[in-house]
């Protein structure tokens, strides 16, 4: 009963908030509703017993990613309304609607593999964070490390692209060597 109420509440709210994100003309509204939606998504995760994932969602998405967006927005003129030529919105909504409908059809259809064997079954009596940790640091160790490297790379890339010589755009300079010399 609890679960049902929570599910429908979260569903209604996320759908609503994300609609606002997608349709709003103001970036600030969009971002705020997106952040709110993310929080509610973590609610789904808690409902689904993926506690660790929910926490990660909150920390990474709502915390880090949204903060990053917020900072980035400061470079742009965020308070102004965005002027866009939203042509052929009929097509867009047709495609979106069809996609939703079809996804519903596909997902509503009985899942074929009723006898799917769980390759990393949830261990009874062990907490979610523990079991995630066990799988992550055994079976998924290599991907985990790769992901870590990827994050590092992304961080450096972000710094290089946005930081340092903020008054020189690396893509517009004709002679990168001179820029390097200047930076020295």
């Amino acid at each position, binding site marked *: 009963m609890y679960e049902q109420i929570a599910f429908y509440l979260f569903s209604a709210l996320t759908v609503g908030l994300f609609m606002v994100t997608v349709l709003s003309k103001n970036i600030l509204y969009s971002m705020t509703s997106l952040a709110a939606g*993310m929080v509610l998504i973590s609610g789904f995760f808690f409902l689904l017993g993926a506690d660790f994932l929910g926490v990660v969602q909150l920390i990474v*998405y709502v915390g880090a990613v949204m903060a990053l967006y917020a900072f980035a927005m400061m470079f742009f003129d965020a308070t102004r309304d965005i002027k866009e030529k939203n042509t052929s919105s009929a097509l867009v909504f047709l495609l979106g609607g069809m996609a939703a409908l079809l996804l519903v059809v596909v997902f509503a259809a009985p899942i074929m593999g009723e006898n799917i064997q769980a390759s990393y079954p949830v261990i009874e009596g062990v907490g979610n964070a523990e079991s995630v940790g066990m799988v*992550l640091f055994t079976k998924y160790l290599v991907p985990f490390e790769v992901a870590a490297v990827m994050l590092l790379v992304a961080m450096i890339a972000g710094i290089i692209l946005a930081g340092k010589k903020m008054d020189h755009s690396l893509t517009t300079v004709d002679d990168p060597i001179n820029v390097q010399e200047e930076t020295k």
Partner: protein
Amino acid sequence: MIGLSHYLIISGILFAIGLVGVLRRKNLLMLFFATEIMLNAANVAFAAVSNYYHDLTGQMFAFFIIAVAASEVAVGLGLLIVLYKKFGTLDLDDLASMKG
């Protein structure tokens, strides 16, 4: 009783919302937002499947998706800043330079 299908359907609807955003918006930042929505929709589906099949693989996937999303935002936003500095806009209609 809330079943797997419920979660999958809500995930589908969320994905479709993200898709509408991707298709409709011209502002690159908005496209990023829409992409995040789609990624989150996928995460919900993964978590749901993981839960209903008692298999942690789904959560692992969702976990990595979050990692990828974080990196994407970091790099993507950096690029957006460069782009904005160069062209002074983030509107795709103004950025079309690769006409075939």
